Each structure stands twice: as C-alpha cells, then as structure tokens.
C-alpha cells in the first residue's frame, strides 16, 4: 500500500508551519503519523501537501510555568509518559499512558496528534479534560502568526471533529497542576491490551482535614464524541465522606448519561461500564491520597 502523491514540507519553526498551513491549498499536518499514515496508506485520505511538524523543535517541550504544566503539541507520548515532571505534577497521565496502545506507537505518537484525531475512546483527550486542559491554537493571518486559546470543554464539535478551523494549528496544551499527594486513577475497559477503551474514566481528588472529599474531577471517555466532565457530580461530592453513598452518587450519574451506541457496543453496556468504572476510579483515586496532605 502506498499513499497517493503529495508534496512534502518540513518546516522547522511554528511560524513557518502556520504559514504553510495558512497558504497552501489542500494541505494536511503530519504529527506522529500513527493514525494519519494508515489512512494515507489505505488512501482513505489523500492530500496535495503534507506539512511534517516533526522538525519543529519548539513544539516539543514539557515544562512547568505559571502554576501549570505546559506540553508542546508534538511531544511524543512516550516522552510524556517517562517525564519525571509529569510523574510529579500529573501522575494521572503516566497511569493513562500505560493503557495507550503499544510502546512502538507511543514512541512516535504525540499528544497534540491524539487530541486532533479525537477518537471518542482515546485516553488522551480524557486526561486533558480531567486536568482542565487549555489548548493554544496558532494560525497565519495577514502576514503574521496569531494565537488563541481554547478550553478542552470547547474542543469536541462532533464525532472525531475538533474545533479547528482551516489553517489552525494546535501548538500546545497546558494542564492544571493538582496539589502534591492528590489522589488519581485512570480506569478503563478495553477488549485487548492496548486497544482503545470502550469506556474509560479519569478521577482526581483531594480531601479535607476530616478526610472528606474536597476537590474532585471525574471525566468519562467512550460515551460521547468528546470526554465528558461530570461537573455536577464533582460539586455534589465536595464535603462528603468517601462512602457507599458517595460511590452510588457518582456511579448513578455515570449510568444515567446519554451515551452513544454503535454496532458493537450497546447503550446499556456503555452505561453499565460508565457506572462501574466511575465508582472504581473514584475509589482508587481516594485510596491514593497521600496522608501528608490531610493536615
């Protein structure tokens, strides 16, 4: 299988990349290529111009700045997974990446590429939403590159369609940093190791001095085009002890979600999984809260 012919562009700066994307007709951006290249091999997708971002150094970084974790869109999934800074500031991400495909794929795949691909079952949009991700979009306008920011909650427009307009380039992602010792868990059910999940749940929590739930973040993937943040449940759980009632409250809300269906997985089954995995993730996150953070 061979892709159809295209012109290849290898920019080395964001400006150059955005300018190419903003001026070329029928152009596509190549990130890690772990989804785009198969589609091109099959000729599901043909393009006149391929803009390869792999040489844009400025898009690969992991750093802490202004109280948030900043990850360049072209940072390899494996680099994020192994980053000591990510492990320290957002251990949820390391846990989620253990469930993402295979090492060979994570070695090449990028966080930005995955967010743009926006598979409904992908773990990466899910943890990005759980950590209140903010996306930086660059575009070439009137001879200059301008950037704007989008929150993860505004990212998914519909099935596999992010809120990118023609000429838009996802440049970076910033994530909330939770206090040290917070609880975290990523739970999912997939048919085989490394497959996309049928349903996955990211949970984060802190507790107060009485060991009651304080701040909670619950996000479910595989039920809608984009990850679903359970804001109402998060608020309702605040100040509650971590008991059966709390678990039921979260599980019941997940089971009541209006979920998508397809030929392989029914609505009922997805709702069942959403409930079970939400309870499991919340329980696991709570069990990992470091005691040092109580006082």
């Amino acid at each position: 299988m061979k892709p159809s012919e295209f012109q290849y562009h290898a920019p080395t700066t964001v400006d150059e990349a955005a300018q190419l994307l903003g001026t070329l007709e029928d152009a596509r951006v190549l990130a890690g290529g772990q989804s785009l290249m198969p589609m091109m091999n099959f000729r599901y997708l043909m393009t006149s111009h391929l803009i390869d971002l792999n040489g844009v150094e400025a898009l690969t970084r992991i750093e802490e700045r202004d109280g948030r974790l900043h990850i360049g869109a072209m940072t390899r999934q494996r680099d994020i997974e192994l980053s000591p800074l990510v492990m320290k500031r957002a251990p949820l991400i390391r846990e989620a990446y253990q469930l993402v495909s295979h090492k060979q794929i994570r070695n090449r795949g990028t966080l930005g590429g995955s967010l743009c691909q926006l598979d409904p079952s992908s773990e990466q949009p899910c943890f990005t939403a759980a950590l209140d991700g903010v996306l930086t979009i660059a575009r070439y306008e009137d001879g200059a590159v301008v950037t704007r920011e989008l929150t993860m909650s505004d990212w998914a427009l519909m099935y596999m369609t992010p809120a990118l307009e023609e000429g838009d380039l996802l440049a970076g992602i910033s994530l909330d940093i939770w206090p040290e010792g917070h609880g975290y868990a990523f739970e999912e059910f997939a048919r085989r190791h490394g497959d996309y999940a049928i349903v996955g749940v990211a949970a984060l929590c802190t507790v107060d001095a009485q060991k009651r739930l304080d701040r909670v973040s619950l996000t479910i993937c595989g039920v809608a085009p984009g990850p679903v943040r359970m804001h109402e449940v998060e608020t309702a759980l605040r100040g509650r002890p971590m008991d059966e009632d709390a678990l039921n409250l979260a599980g019941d809300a997940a089971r009541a979600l209006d979920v998508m269906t397809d030929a392989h997985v029914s609505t009922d089954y997805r709702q069942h999984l959403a409930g079970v995995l939400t309870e499991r993730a919340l329980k696991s996150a709570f069990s990992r809260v470091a005691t040092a953070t109580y006082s």
Partner: protein
Amino acid sequence: METRTVRVVVNGTAYEHEVEPRRMLGDFLRHDLNLTGTHYGCEHGVCGACTVLIEGRTARACLTLAAQVNGRSLTTVEGLAHADGTLNVLQQAFTETHALQCGFCTPGMLMTLTELLNETDSPTEAEIREAITGNLCRCTGYQPIVAAALLAAQRIRDQRAAAPAAQATE
C-alpha cells in the same frame, strides 16, 4: 516528480538516496537499500513485523516516511548479529528456545525486545508480554518468544556479573 534526499545511517553504514516523498521507510529499506530483513505485514501499523529502531527507539517502518529519517541513525534486524556473523545474545536465545516457526514476525519481535533489553536487563515475564503486545505472531508461538527474552536477559545479567571490571572501564 519532486524528490527528497535522504541521508541516513543504518546499522552503522551511511546511505544517501533520492526518494519520492511518499516512499515509506519500510519500502525504502527493502527496495532502495536492499535490507530485506525488515518485513512488511499489514502496512498499517497493526502487526509490528516492520518494527525498526530510530535513534534506539522502536517505530513502525510502515508508518514512517523515508524522508522523516533524514539525518537519523537506524538499527534494523541486520544490525543485531556480531560483525563476524555470529548471533547476538537475543538471537541466540531465539534459536535455542525455538522462538520462531515461520519467522515472519521475528525481525519485529527482535527489534521490540532489543529496545526492552536496552532499557532493563531484568524484565519480568509480564513486562516482556506487554512489550510484545504490539507484535503479532500468526503461528501464535508467543510462549517460546517470552522464554527467549527471559533467557537472553539472564545471560546479559550473567555477563555483566562476570565482567564488572570490564564494564566499569567501558
């Protein structure tokens, strides 16, 4: 037709070649460089037969453009054996445990396990199994492949234990 110049080091040898932008790395290795040890199975990133190391890290040669390895250093299955043709420790373990039947998946398995053994000389069986989840063996001979990896790891540890002085001076 537009072409790109690819300058690449494969198994220590420098190559320079003109390629079409759509030339995939696997075809480049097999057809342009005549390195046919890298196998092509599914050609869409599922089977892992085409796994090679780019700067020491595994990657699917069927999902990488030849143009993307310009300036890089690669290792393919041809680069594993010693210069005199004798098998390296992992390959030797494969032959001893009968870790290949038809042999089609073997190059990918070897490259994947090479990366793992470079990261750790004491992988658990579970880690080995997880490492090769990205490689399909249609003969379904996974058991001896896992055994080969465990045996190779054991021998690497034994060698290191036997020659700590030599290692320290390296």
